[in-house]
């Protein structure tokens, strides 16, 4: 039980860190690369920073954790289809961002599993 608690805490803090990193990359991307869509990147980054705060505070984990998991997958899917259709967002910064986002999604999946084990 103690091992489970510790690993859950580790996963939560790892997820928080990943959410902060990807939020910061989104801000950076909006500021330097995005052109027409910079405001959208600020919004996406802001949501990640907010998610990181809520995750760190461990508020309503049963709702917040699946929401962040879904948000990360939603943005990954949105980016992949958008990139396929428009050719936009296929640069090194976007790849790093999406890599971190994929890690976050995996991490959140594991955290949800751990959190739901009674």
């Amino acid at each position, binding site marked *: 039980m103690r091992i489970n608690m510790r690993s859950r805490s580790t996963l939560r803090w790892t997820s928080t860190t990943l959410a902060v990193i990807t939020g910061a990359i989104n801000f950076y991307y909006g500021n330097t*690369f*995005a*052109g*027409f*869509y910079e405001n959208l990147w600020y919004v996406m980054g802001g949501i990640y920073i907010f998610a990181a705060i809520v995750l760190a505070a461990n508020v309503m984990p049963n709702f917040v954790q*699946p929401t962040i*998991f*879904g*948000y*990360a*997958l*939603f*943005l*990954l*899917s*949105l*980016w*992949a*289809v*958008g990139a*396929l*259709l*428009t*050719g*936009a967002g296929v640069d090194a910064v976007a790849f790093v961002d999406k890599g971190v986002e994929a890690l976050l999604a995996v991490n959140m*999946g594991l955290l*949800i*599993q751990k959190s*739901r084990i009674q």
Partner: protein
Amino acid sequence: MRTPSGRWSTGRLLIVVALVAVVGGALVGTAVGYGFHYEARQTRNIYLFNNGLDFNETTFGLPHDTFTPDHITVNKGDTVVLHYINIEDKPEKHNFSIGVPYNIDVDVAQGQTAEITFTANYAGIFLYYCKYHTPTMEGYLTVQG
């Protein structure tokens, strides 16, 4: 697939959330792809020349010089490289100026080429002009974004 307490199992929860998120993302991505015409920022090489209209400057009290082209359109974030060529057949100086926020002021002597590079970071419509031949030698830079 529900646990005895009535909750969804973890596996089912993850699958449902993942499916909704991926399908939702794909739908929005498709809408973005077809609904918006996004162009990644790029470097735009533009060749700019002085030109002359065929009228008597003294009669009309105006310089006969103009720009070709007199309209330039770029996207916000583009790098603009202007190759400004003075094609006068007599020794006459021309100039390319834009006011704030770009603050460009470059002279070009007869037969010379000036390369003017800047990043179009500010959206709007900006007057460019030759300070020696206003008001005829003018054009508009449109930065859309």
